[in-house]
């Protein structure tokens, strides 16, 4: 049976799933219920200076009928008094000694302010502190949140102030609203941070009302960028987690990384773990469905680990990191071709349209006599189910022309209908980097490139 326990920067947790610092961790009453449901830890909603919130603070993006594909918020840090939060944190930690209770904090960029809040948090018995350098709205206008996270020097300076006094682990939470997230990550590491967490929310505007021309949602007629999260941001988050986990300076320290950004299912969770995350934080999925999702997160993860014979999370954590590479290091001689399983194919012909209009025109429509036909070739007098079904042509890939771009695979609505089969290219493995070193003219001159293609047998139609 899989063991889901983790130890992250010295903080123990019965499973890797923590509630991210957000509305689901606003109060002790909520967190009691979350821990009863089985959450391994919670990062308390950011405490700090006084704030006032607005209505219509959450806006969601819906796609094709899927609610909350992404959610945007302009909610600020906790709007409950500091004393109340500190009292409740103490109470929660006392009631749940085996769970990870981490407190997110954000104060004015002054050494004293940080020193004070660190001591106040440590007094509660909390297991760790998370420095919120990510909040992209409101707080950043007051010089906090992402205003810090976007400047590696500030990030380093403030982390130093905290590390000078902190006795419990300190996690620095990074903003994705920056050209390269690795720089603030390194700054935090240089300042001695115990761990990193990413990604915070992404700047966004959810939408516009086409009748009023106001933003959607509208805050009394106005609106602006807020922080974007949820399933839609997962690929962005995976990339940033991989970039930070693979960074030399982060690895050398080494500091663990708490991964978050669009985790909704145990499968998402496994992906973050395979890219090196040491713990996982979740918010949007809970905002959508409630604390109860923890059951399948743990159950699905444990069942997957059992099926792969992994006893602990450490057994597979970071396994994919070595496979993350730059384009220049990809094998240019690797070749795959799309193959359509005609027994599974329902003939929606979306692959045909995609290949024909947006890729490389290598799928044909084949009629029952085996002849390639044009779409819409049926007789206008034809009608009825029987004829429409019987005469429907079958999409088929011309494998010799297929560049293996994988667009058809991506649009196909049927599970396991299109396979990207590896086919021998007949060429020796070579990367762009190797080619550029061995044959620089090929990478610089079109004529040399054409000769090279001819020589090794690369046909681009």
């Amino acid at each position, binding site marked *: 049976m899989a063991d889901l326990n983790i130890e992250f920067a010295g903080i123990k947790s019965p499973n890797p799933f923590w509630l991210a610092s957000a509305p689901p961790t606003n109060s002790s009453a909520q967190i009691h219920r979350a821990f009863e449901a089985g959450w391994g830890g919670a990062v308390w909603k950011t405490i700090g200076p006084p704030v006032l919130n607005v209505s219509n603070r959450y806006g969601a993006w819906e796609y094709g009928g899927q609610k909350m594909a992404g959610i945007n918020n302009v909610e600020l840090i906790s709007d409950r008094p500091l004393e109340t939060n500190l009292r409740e944190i103490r109470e929660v930690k006392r009631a749940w000694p085996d769970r990870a209770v981490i407190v997110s904090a954000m104060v004015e960029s002054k050494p004293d302010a940080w020193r004070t809040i660190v001591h106040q948090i440590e007094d509660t018995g909390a297991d760790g502190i998370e420095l919120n350098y990510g909040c992209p709205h409101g707080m950043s206008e007051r010089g906090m949140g992402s205003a810090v996270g976007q400047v590696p020097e500030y990030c380093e300076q403030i982390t130093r102030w905290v590390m000078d006094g902190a006795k419990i682990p300190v996690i620095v939470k990074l903003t994705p609203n920056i050209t390269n997230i690795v720089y603030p990550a390194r700054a935090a590491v240089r300042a001695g941070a115990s761990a990193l967490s990413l990604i915070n929310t992404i700047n966004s505007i959810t939408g516009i009302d086409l009748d009023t021309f106001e933003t959607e949602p509208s805050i009394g007629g106005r609106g602006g960028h807020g922080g974007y999260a949820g399933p839609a941001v997962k690929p962005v988050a995976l990339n940033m987690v991989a970039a930070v986990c693979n960074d030399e300076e982060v690895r050398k320290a080494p500091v663990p990384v708490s991964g978050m950004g669009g985790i909704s299912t145990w499968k998402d969770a496994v992906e973050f773990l395979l890219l090196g995350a040491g713990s996982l934080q979740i918010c949007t999925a809970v905002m959508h469905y409630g604390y109860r999702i923890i059951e399948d997160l743990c159950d699905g993860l444990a069942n997957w680990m059992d099926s792969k014979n992994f006893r602990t999370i450490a057994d597979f954590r970071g396994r994919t990191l070595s496979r993350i590479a730059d384009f220049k290091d990809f094998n240019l001689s690797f070749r795959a071709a799309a193959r359509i399983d005609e027994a599974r194919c329902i003939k*929606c012909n*979306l692959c045909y349209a995609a290949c024909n209009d947006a890729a490389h025109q290598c799928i044909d429509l084949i009629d029952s006599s085996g002849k390639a036909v044009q*779409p819409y070739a049926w007789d206008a007098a034809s009608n009825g189910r029987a*004829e429409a079904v019987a005469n429907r042509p079958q999409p088929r890939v011309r494998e010799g022309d297929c560049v293996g771009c994988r667009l058809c695979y991506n649009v196909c609505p049927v599970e396991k209908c299109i396979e990207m089969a590896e086919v021998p290219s007949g060429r020796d493995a070579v990367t762009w980097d190797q080619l550029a070193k061995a044959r620089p003219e090929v990478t610089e001159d079109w004529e040399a490139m054409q000769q090279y293609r001819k020589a090794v047998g690369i046909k681009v139609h």
Partner: protein
Amino acid sequence: MEPLKTEPLGEQFPPLTAQEALIEANRCLFCYDAPCTQACPTHIDVPRFIKKIATGNLRGSASTIFEANLLGATCARVCPVQELCEGACVLGAEHKPIMIGRLQRYAMDYVYSQGLNTIRIAPATGRKIAIAGCGPAGLSCAGELARRGYQVTVFEQRELGGGLSTYGIISLREPVQASLEEVKMIERLGVRIETRRELGADLSLDDLRARFDAVFLGLGLGAVPAMGIAGEDHIIDGLAYIEQSKMNQSAMKVGRRVAVIGGGNTAIDCATVARRLGAEHVVMIYRRSAREMSAYPHEYEFIKKEGVEMRFLTQPTGVIVEGGKVVGLRAIRMELGPPDASGRRVAQPSKGGEFTIPADQVVKAIGQEKPALAERLGLATDRGYIKVARNFETSMPGVFAGGDCIRVKSAASTVMAVQDGKLAAASIHKKLSETRNG
């Protein structure tokens, strides 16, 4: 508005809610060169109109339907979608096909309820067209010509337009109001409809040919034919039975034990009317077996659930009348012989004598008489139906025909009539365009 639960023949399906329509529209895969479009006799671009529902462009969705089919509101309700678009849906094999008919009705309901005119009309051509018959074929042809700029007059012998959609489709599937709304929409395109005008009576074809540039005949078919059995005049015509259930339901007398003769869709409709309007027992009597029924399989499934008894291989031989009242049917057993011209096995009398089926009301729905008018008008016919060329022109130059009155082969249906009217309109336009200056 949702039909009242107490209305026994109220529309079978409620309109989709906005939420249902959105979920269903999003479920559509947006197939390329979609089979539903091919299967639709009028070739409505189904994925296009459905995706417009998904994007919230309901006006555009309705326009897409109207491009191919001006009677989209009727077709959305009465089409045997299982045999057409939905039957061809790629999701049908392993999942559930998209509810294309109900989505089409959703888009149609939108423009009708909002009173939107989405059809553009070309500048007037100055040419005049006469159409005889205000059923689906005539209305479709009229609307298609009107949008091309023709001045169209439709002559209808009945009091109301709409043909079978108004009089002959049970309101469970299409309420009278839906059909009349559609007639009004065609009128808004500039079509003039003159009711209580009958070709062969107060209108002559020669006169129409003289006064109009072209004529289209959408005459439909006749009454239910005679069975030639004893007590025939005690048998009710199935179409009249349905008509009364729509037009004057409160005055309608439905028997306690009703026998419906026939195995087609109209027979099923008659049995439904009888059952829903209070008959204690309804029996359908068909001389062949379930396999040979011309009713659609889904209709047969429906009527079984209505609690109607089926008597197959049974041939009525006479109505038993006592004291002027129907008390039953005499019938004999049949057996199946070799296939006939339609490929269905014929029924022939089997051994054994007559037996009695108790009934106090007998309704026949055994098809419709062929258009008798055709020969009187001097038109060439094919097996009793009006003979037309590929372009829907009859033997008389400038006279076109479509709909049930030309349907020699395959089952007559509203959507086929709509397509005939549309194609005939295109032929008329082509012919008149070629002779513009001639």
